[in-house]
């Protein structure tokens, strides 16, 4: 039996896929040189002028692919963390995962262990992201309250920020420090297929791990003990989510710097449409994340300014007030304090 709910969710997935595709095409068309959709299509498939082909295929296509992949994995990670913790305020950036991944990557750069295009970078990002989420869940413990999770996340992201500052502080080359500082702001500009190759395998692996556990999130709505009694190995699920989020976020941060709040916002935008079922939220959240990041990356190219606005700055400027709004909405739960 297929219910109306699953039919409408399929329609929603289609709508969002179409939206992502549309935004991707706009992303290929927008920039210093504006191209019509027709020219974009021609350039993609080998037509148009040499110059247009280079712009579309080598400059804008990697950027669009990274926008889709990174936005999707951030949305998916946010939805998965919210499902795991049964908490609408959970997200990778509030838990310090991107900040920790960035510290891992910065450490590698500052120590001169690798250049910015090496595979060491995502690996360092992934290990530090894993360590941070693991630490967070260990500190917060089972059935942690919202307050505890957010405080622990604040502590971890502050620590990662401080360590990143220290690494830059101690960096022997001031120019490298400046470069790192800009890279930390989060951007998809000037990325090549080399970056896509660097990040995509980890993002795909993270997504596969998170989606393979999707049904367990719904059972977890009943709490950890009831879920365990229904046959969910909760310990293994936690590890899988930590690993999936770390792979996705670590791989993303290694090529784009820190882009925050997509993981928090995407599931929230979807709840009024999809409902609160944490399993049904996963795929739409990934698509919404992709759409959000593509839109933000298009916006930074359209907003008139003398210097480029970094997309990570824009998502934070939109994300933080949104977070405040959510805090106000969840005030009752938060007011419960240590419950």
């Amino acid at each position, binding site marked *: 039996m297929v219910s109306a*709910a699953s039919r409408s969710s399929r329609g929603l997935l289609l709508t969002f896929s179409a939206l992502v595709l549309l935004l991707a095409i706009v992303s290929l068309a927008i920039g210093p040189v504006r191209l019509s959709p027709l020219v974009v299509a021609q350039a993609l498939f080998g037509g148009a002028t040499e110059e247009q082909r280079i712009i579309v295929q080598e400059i804008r296509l990697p950027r669009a692919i990274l926008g889709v992949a990174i936005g999707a994995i951030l949305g998916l990670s946010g939805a998965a963390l919210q499902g795991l913790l049964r908490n609408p305020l959970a997200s990778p950036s509030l838990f310090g995962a991107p900040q920790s991944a960035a510290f891992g990557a910065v450490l590698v750069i500052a120590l001169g262990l690798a250049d910015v295009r090496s595979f060491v970078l995502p690996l360092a990002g992934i290990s530090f992201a894993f360590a941070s989420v693991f630490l967070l869940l260990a500190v917060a413990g089972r059935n942690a309250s919202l307050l505890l999770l957010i405080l622990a996340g604040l502590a971890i992201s502050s620590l990662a920020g401080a360590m990143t500052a220290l690494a830059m502080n101690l960096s022997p080359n001031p120019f490298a420090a400046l470069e790192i500082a800009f890279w930390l702001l989060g951007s998809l500009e000037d990325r090549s297929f080399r970056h896509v190759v660097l990040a995509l395998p980890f993002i795909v692996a993270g997504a596969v791990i998170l989606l393979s556990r999707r049904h367990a999130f719904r059972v977890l709505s009943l*709490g950890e003990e009831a879920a365990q*009694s*229904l*046959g*969910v190995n909760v310990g293994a699920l936690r590890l899988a989510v930590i690993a999936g989020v770390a792979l996705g976020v670590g791989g993303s941060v290694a090529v784009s710097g820190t882009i925050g709040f997509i993981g928090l916002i995407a599931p929230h935008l979807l709840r009024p449409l999809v409902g*609160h*079922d944490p*399993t049904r939220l996963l795929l739409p959240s990934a698509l919404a994340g992709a759409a959000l990041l593509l839109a933000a990356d298009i916006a930074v190219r359209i907003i008139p300014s003398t210097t480029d606005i970094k997309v990570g700055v824009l998502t934070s400027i939109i994300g933080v007030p949104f977070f405040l709004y959510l805090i106000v909405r969840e005030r009752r739960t938060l007011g419960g304090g240590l419950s």
Partner: protein
Amino acid sequence: MSESFLVMQDVSVSRSGRGVLHDVSLALPRRSVVALVGPNGAGKTTLLKAIAGLLPFQGIVRVAEDDVSGLSIRERARKIAYLPQGHVVHWPLSVRDVVALGRYPHGANDPARLNDADQAAVSRAMALSDLDLLSDRNVNELSGGERSRVALARVIAVGAPVVLADEPTASLDPRYQIDAMRLLRRIADDGALVVVVSHELGLAARFADNVLVLADGRLVIQGTPHDALAESVLARTFRVSAFRTRHLGEDVVVPWAEV
């Protein structure tokens, strides 16, 4: 007592170095309601969790001859259904979706696509729990009594031969308490072994075939409500006296005064 279905041998549980349960041994038959009573902190919830495999223990738990620790987590989930205290549902899901989670141990991953057997089990559980009219309602909008019926239906939908319910009647009004116990009685009559933790001695006396009295992590007595809830037992474990009588052919026990 007829043939034993659930057997515990010398089951002990320690938490952070402190013994919570000490060498509990018991044997319980199918088609019965067993009330597990005892003062706060006696280890009732711990005992249920040990049976459900939710915490590490020493000793042996067998269900239908199978050593529970040798079962896979899904196999165990199909044999033993567990209802924790509180009936929490963290997201506002529909009543039907929550009840359908009871079929997860049988491989029903998606409540929107149940096979015929799962669909039948869910429909039956909802009908037994009188939830048909609430099917599409959001669980977080329901009253406490309705939520407890949803929780019970979720447990019934598992179709497990052993059902463990931790204080299913807590914070319910008298009518819902009786409804909940009748429902548990009904699934016991259909063949399940139902172990129910309760502080309501009156409900235990009325609806249970057997009563287990637990105090300080030890099994004090196991027997019929008449024997296990005797004056001397209540005085020793609960430090209360009780008013007792029979009404319409059933035992009535009302805790009365401190002793």
